[in-house]
């Protein structure tokens, strides 16, 4: 026999107390009376001067001890290991995304969801098992399958909310195999429904119960933030931002722009109901620094009321164009703002003096060790063996949101011939034909690479307006300043990376609102990765002489929109509606045995009061 609640056996300490009650005699008030004759006639009990009396054989005592023993045993929940039908398997997924910080529930959505999970744990039957998953930036298995309620409660107490975007699909994918092919299995999702990527997840007959947290949408937040040279005045900087109003009323608020903590501008905003309002702030910048935007609104979710972005002073981009003659490309590069173009016929060194190299159909003798844009040339380790060239490939897919394709349209572009490669793991196909990618962009060995599978001169593209825009985008994307700015930006949950040339033994990091932490660095390491970025704000990282400030911002319209979703869409057709209450067997035995214990003690007290 074992016990599910062995701690309840501590109540056995009450057994000697019952015996003690029987041993104990009460202190009495002395009173002189005329005669004790009448009292003697009246009374049955006798006298003793010591505080204790001899323990006499008393059936009542034995019964009470027996009853108390049984109650304590019951509280210990004894069980025999035997074979019986398996219990239920419950997978509780607790959403720890940023929107769960919303304070419309008391004290927050996350705490409310935790309370609900606690209630689910309380209602577990003895044969039930439960898994606890915390879905933050990544899904954490807080507790593997167990029937041990104490372990589950401990795991639940260790759950904390993050400022990361919701990644429910990952958690659901993890939960699927646990509940698959089990008759009595359920996934309980404790969330406000703010999650993106469930469209790929087909609801394959999952028993999903959605416990909704949240009552209202009362939030204004920053959803995009970018800083660029001002399009009309290159000496100024333009801070682009957009603000989302998740409420169903128009909201008047104020926005503050600060640079390195100095207030630059305060702007009143009126955002219409459920609208996103873009804003551009123009300002002079005299040194490298950090722009911070603050929304002065007292709303449910403070995490998205602040966003920061690093901005370095614009430096001229040095471009080496290796070509046998391409006026279109040359002109397009020269037209890009703040660029110094050098043209060469071939490349024989690593081109370390340039910011990036454009290889226009020329195979270099030595591959450059800087960012590269390659046109119809490929290094051998970039792709698997290439197939036969494609004739007149048609553009079928364009990733219009990629920075390379900003403000471009490739609708009227015809291509005569292109190379046929498979998209490698390091790159993203930003423009694709039906059989092969046409433009790839990615990062390889810490260098950014843009690869064109076709020669623009063998297409109609140089005649379109989209070509110089694409080249300008490419210049910006490949420019090391942009790369480092992007590296210094992160979403909550994403790791921060810092490269360094010299040997360092330790790095110091100061997360927002916390003390400085010292991280040991292995000898010979050239990169430091810091993963504990679950809170938004500025992370100051120092390793050797390198000192970098990372801006971790929420910037997620889905999380800023704190409207509690009544249903969650899964795959293309399936929906799961919020079920706030459902039938459950609430165990009452604890209360009953507690009352039994109280009655027993009262009975003892009352009995003694009458028979003393």
């Amino acid at each position, binding site marked *: 026999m074992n016990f599910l609640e062995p701690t309840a056996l501590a109540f056995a300490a009450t057994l000697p107390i019952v015996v003690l009650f029987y041993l104990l005699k*009460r202190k009495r008030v002395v009173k002189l009376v005329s005669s*004790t004759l009448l009292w*003697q006639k009246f009374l049955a009990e006798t006298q003793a001067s010591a505080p204790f009396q001899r323990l006499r054989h008393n059936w009542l005592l034995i019964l009470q001890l027996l009853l108390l023993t049984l109650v304590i045993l019951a509280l210990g929940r004894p069980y025999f290991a035997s074979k019986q039908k398996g219990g239920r398997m419950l997978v509780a997924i607790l959403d720890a995304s940023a929107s769960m910080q919303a304070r419309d529930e008391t004290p927050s959505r996350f705490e409310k969801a935790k309370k609900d999970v606690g209630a689910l744990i309380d209602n577990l039957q003895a044969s039930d098992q439960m898994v606890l998953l915390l879905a933050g930036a990544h899904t954490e298995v807080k507790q593997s399958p167990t029937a041990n309620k104490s372990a589950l409660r401990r795991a639940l107490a260790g759950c904390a909310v993050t400022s990361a975007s919701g990644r429910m699909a990952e958690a659901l994918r993890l939960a699927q195999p646990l509940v698959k092919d089990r008759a009595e299995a359920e996934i309980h999702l404790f969330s406000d429904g703010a999650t993106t990527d469930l469209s790929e997840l087909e609801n394959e007959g999952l028993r999903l119960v959605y416990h909704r947290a949240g009552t209202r949408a009362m939030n204004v937040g920053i959803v995009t933030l970018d800083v660029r040279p001002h399009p009309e005045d290159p000496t100024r900087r333009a801070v682009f931002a957009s603000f989302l109003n998740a409420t169903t009323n128009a909201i008047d608020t104020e926005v503050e722009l600060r640079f390195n903590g100095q207030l630059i501008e305060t702007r009143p905003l009126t955002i219409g109901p459920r609208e996103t309002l873009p804003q551009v702030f123009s300002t002079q910048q005299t040194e490298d620094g950090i722009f911070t935007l603050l929304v002065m609104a007292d709303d449910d979710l403070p995490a998205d009321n602040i966003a920061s972005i690093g901005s370095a002073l614009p430096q001229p981009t040095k471009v080496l164009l290796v070509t046998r003659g391409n006026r279109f490309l040359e002109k397009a590069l020269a037209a890009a703002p703040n660029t110094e173009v050098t043209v060469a016929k071939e490349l024989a060194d690593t081109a370390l003096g340039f910011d990036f190299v454009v290889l226009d159909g020329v195979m270099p003798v030595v591959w450059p060790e800087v960012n590269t844009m390659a046109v119809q040339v490929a290094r051998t380790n970039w792709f698997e063996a290439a197939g036969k060239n494609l004739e007149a490939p048609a553009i079928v897919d364009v990733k219009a949101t990629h920075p390379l394709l900003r403000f471009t349209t490739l609708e009227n572009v015809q291509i005569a011939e292109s190379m046929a490669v498979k998209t490698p793991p390091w790159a993203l196909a930003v423009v694709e034909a039906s059989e092969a990618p046409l433009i790839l962009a990615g990062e390889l060995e810490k260098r950014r690479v843009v690869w064109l599978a076709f020669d623009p001169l063998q297409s109609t593209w140089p005649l379109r307006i989209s070509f110089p825009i694409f080249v300008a985008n490419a210049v910006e994307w490949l420019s090391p300043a942009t790369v480092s700015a992007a590296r210094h930006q992160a979403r909550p949950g994403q790791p921060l990376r810092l490269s360094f040339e010299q040997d360092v033994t330790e790095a110091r990091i100061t997360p927002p609102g916390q003390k400085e932490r010292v991280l040991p660095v292995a000898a010979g390491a050239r990169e430091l990765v810091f993963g504990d970025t679950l809170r938004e704000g500025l992370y100051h990282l120092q390793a050797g002489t390198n000192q970098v400030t990372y801006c971790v911002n929420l910037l997620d319209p889905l999380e800023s929109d704190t409207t509690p979703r009544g249903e969650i869409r899964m795959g293309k057709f399936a929906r799961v509606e919020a079920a706030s209450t459902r039938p459950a067997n609430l165990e009452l035995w604890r209360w009953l045995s507690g009352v039994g214990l109280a009655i027993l003690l009262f009975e003892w007290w009352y009995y003694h009061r009458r028979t003393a």
Partner: protein
Amino acid sequence: MRRLEQLQLLAQRRARSAARGERRSRSRGQSVEFADYRNYVAGDDLRYLDWNLYGRLDRLFLKLYEEERELPVRIFLDASESMTFGEPSKFDYARQVAAAVGYVALCGFDRVSVTVFPEENVDAPTAGALRQVRGRKSALPFFQNLGRITAKGTVALNESLRRGALEARQPGLAIVLSDFLDPAGYEAGLNALAGRGFQINLIHVLADEELNPATYGDLRLVDSESGGFQEVTFGRYRLAAYQKTVANFCQRLREYLATRGGNYFMANTAMPLEDLLLKQLRQAEVWR
């Protein structure tokens, strides 16, 4: 006092006293109460011949009259320590009753004797003075002597009553004033009185705190006479049970007395004295 003067003690039995008084007796003697006739024999007092009868029957008959004797009234007064309790104390109450009964008896030309127990509580001259009191003029000294008695010590009720019964030359009316809280009981003493031919009037004096105790909680009760103690947990919820015990005790005493032709009176010291004297005793025809 004036109302008491009008009262007269009643005895169910004829007085047996040797002294003359105002009570009817079995003896024939000189009074105005006609009793019987008897034949004249030589030497009889000619003043008692019924001449009318002689005229009708021509025979001499002598008229006989009842002899009027006094009624011996013996008061047994409990002066033990337990009698000092109550407000007013049971002893004061009993003493007042004794004084009233004694005064009524003295007004009726009866002989009053008071037996105080324990005997140590009264000095010898007072005890002697209380042993024989007669005549209305003795009332004031009688009261003063009663006032000299103090209550203390342990009671031996049976012994005292038995001795009182033996000491009495003639039986008469016995008034017993006590709380009867003697662990040895009361049966032997009352038996002795009844056996000697006393008509017993028993006045059971109890204090209100003995009838309705108002001290609750875990108590250690100390006996005022024996010094013994009794531990008890008492509360309002047990009051009724206690009162029932007291009622049973009184009822047993009453029944015991009834089988011996006595009268039982319950006196709560909180009760006005007049209620006892002018209502209860009168209703029970102890006096009229």
